[in-house]
């Protein structure tokens, strides 16, 4: 029995824990041997330091959560998979980590792999090498939370946390056939999340099913005085939204998401999903999100501008890597030139350019205005509709190395997820099919600010009437 604990969901394990049928240590040791067996192939986790660290990060209680390497864990390495943060051990826990511990659960002793500073859509930009997709090791797991998604998909984790700035939870969830939720901006505290783009970042759960997603949201949501952008609204019990009748739900299908560039197999799977929901009484209507084509260009101005400012703190003085020079300014420049990877430098320079004198109005200010139009498109649709349904990504997982030399092509793999971050609305990706090559396809459901419950009701109804979430990759 113990051998297969890793394959269970958190709510199944929770029941066994409550019945005293198993102990938390049993789950941990099952996961550890699973990781030992599979992670040399998948590379979902960062290598453990040789010497164990002191501190309370090692206490195992409840069901351990796998944590992305950009979320601060007290006493345990948090390096954003970047050379510039090499060796950084946070002196405090992120609020989400505190909440996980307070709920009786704990964090896994491993951090999950990611694109450096969450800059990427494939988990290839990591100082620890690329993570592989458990469904096909020659494919990427998506990114930037590719380590968390691959760990959950390969049963190397029961559940995990990721962060989503432009799709970094939902797109890897889609590529790895698991469930990933980006909550409403402000629903989950960002305190202790190493910032990429502060107006877009949100932490969220990556899980094996919808129930676990709701459970983890119950734990991590809520107002935090340490994050002035977190919103002081009561947190509902999200599991109560599961099993709710979705008959009469009004769902919009934006036509701009079904145009050239969408893989026919992905399109067919999403259409099939629409048909199964229709049978449950959901009302679908074609709608328009007029400014969809501008979301990617808006994002790559706003996100890089915010990143260039946030990453100014990495200068070799307070933490991480420092290069040698006798002059302070040259020390900064060498430290940042040597410590940041290629994509990080590309984004910092693009963002600095967009904010620089002479270009600010043409790029940054214009992008903020188009962001308003994108947000207004959603606002007006949500007056009439409960949810919006789309594919999560235009294709299934692509090959390792396929897009790495063409940043623009890489950026376009987030084309369906970015708008939700710009508008601040919640979105989920859940499995809805497989390609003929056996790669997972993801379905995205979006809702109005703070209406995660509607997403959960609809997603759960779909999940309970299909078998996609039960499929597992054949890794061994």
């Amino acid at each position, binding site marked *: 029995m113990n051998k297969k604990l890793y394959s269970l969901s958190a709510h199944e394990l929770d029941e066994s824990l409550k019945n005293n049928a198993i102990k938390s240590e049993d789950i941990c040791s099952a996961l550890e041997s699973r990781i030992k067996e599979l992670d040399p192939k998948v590379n979902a986790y960062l290598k453990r330091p040789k010497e164990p660290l002191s501190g309370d990060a090692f206490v195992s209680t409840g069901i351990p959560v796998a944590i992305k390497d950009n979320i601060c864990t007290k006493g345990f390495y948090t390096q954003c998979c970047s050379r510039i943060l090499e060796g950084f051990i946070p002196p405090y826990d992120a609020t989400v980590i505190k909440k996980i511990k307070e709920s009786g659960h704990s964090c896994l002793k491993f951090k999950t792999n990611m694109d450096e500073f969450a800059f990427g859509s494939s988990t290839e930009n990591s100082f620890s090498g690329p993570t592989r997709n458990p469904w096909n090791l020659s494919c990427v797991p998506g990114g930037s939370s590719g380590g968390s998604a691959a760990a959950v998909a390969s049963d190397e984790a029961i559940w995990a946390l990721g962060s989503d700035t432009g799709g970094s939870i939902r797109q890897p969830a889609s590529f790895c056939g698991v469930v990933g939720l980006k909550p409403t901006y402000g629903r989950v505290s960002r305190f202790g999340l190493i910032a990429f783009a502060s107006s877009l970042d949100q932490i969220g759960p990556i899980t094996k099913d919808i129930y676990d997603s709701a459970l983890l949201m119950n734990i991590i949501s809520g107002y935090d005085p340490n994050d002035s952008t977190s919103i002081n609204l009561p947190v509902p019990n999200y599991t109560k939204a599961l099993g709710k009748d979705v008959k009469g739900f009004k769902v919009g299908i934006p036509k701009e998401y079904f145009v050239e560039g969408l893989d026919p197999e992905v399109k067919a799977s999403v259409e099939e999903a629409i048909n199964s929901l229709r049978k449950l009484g959901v009302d679908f209507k074609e709608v328009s999100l007029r400014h969809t084509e501008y979301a990617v260009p808006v994002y790559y101005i706003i996100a890089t501008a915010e990143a260039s400012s946030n990453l100014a703190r990495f200068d070799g003085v307070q933490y991480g890597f420092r290069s040698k020079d006798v002059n302070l300014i040259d020390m900064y420049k060498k430290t940042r030139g040597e410590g940041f990877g290629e994509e990080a430098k590309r984004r910092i*320079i693009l963002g600095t350019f967009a904010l620089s004198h002479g270009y600010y109005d043409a790029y940054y200010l214009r992008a903020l205005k188009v962001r308003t139009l994108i947000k207004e498109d959603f606002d007006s649709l949500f007056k009439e509709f409960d949810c919006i349904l789309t594919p999560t990504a235009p294709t299934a997982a692509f090959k390792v190395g396929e897009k790495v030399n063409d940043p623009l092509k890489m950026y376009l793999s987030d084309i369906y997820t970015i708008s939700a971050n710009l508008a601040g609305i919640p979105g989920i990706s859940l499995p809805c099919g497989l390609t003929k090559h056996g790669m997972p396809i993801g379905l995205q459901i979006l809702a109005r600010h703070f209406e995660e419950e509607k997403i959960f009701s609809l997603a759960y109804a779909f999940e309970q009437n299909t078998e996609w979430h039960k499929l597992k990759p054949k890794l061994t």
Partner: protein
Amino acid sequence: MIDKKIVEYVANLARIELKEKEADVLSTQLGDILGFIDKLKEVNVDKVSPTSHAISLSNVLREDSPKESLPVNSVLSNAPLKRGNFFLVPKVIE
């Protein structure tokens, strides 16, 4: 639109030292990306106000009351160079 000279100028603003080859590759790549971003010029934004946060908040205030801070040694423990209770940097004045 963006050439090697601008890339080097901006890299200096961002305090990033680039190798010769990096600056070449970046000017081509950023040229492509900015070419794509120029799409935004099609949009009429004359009467549109900018959105810097999706959920608008203003003046989030709190009481100015002292709270416990992190212990100095735990904060300094990550410093590449330190002396006493200070971060150590190269000399900035003659």
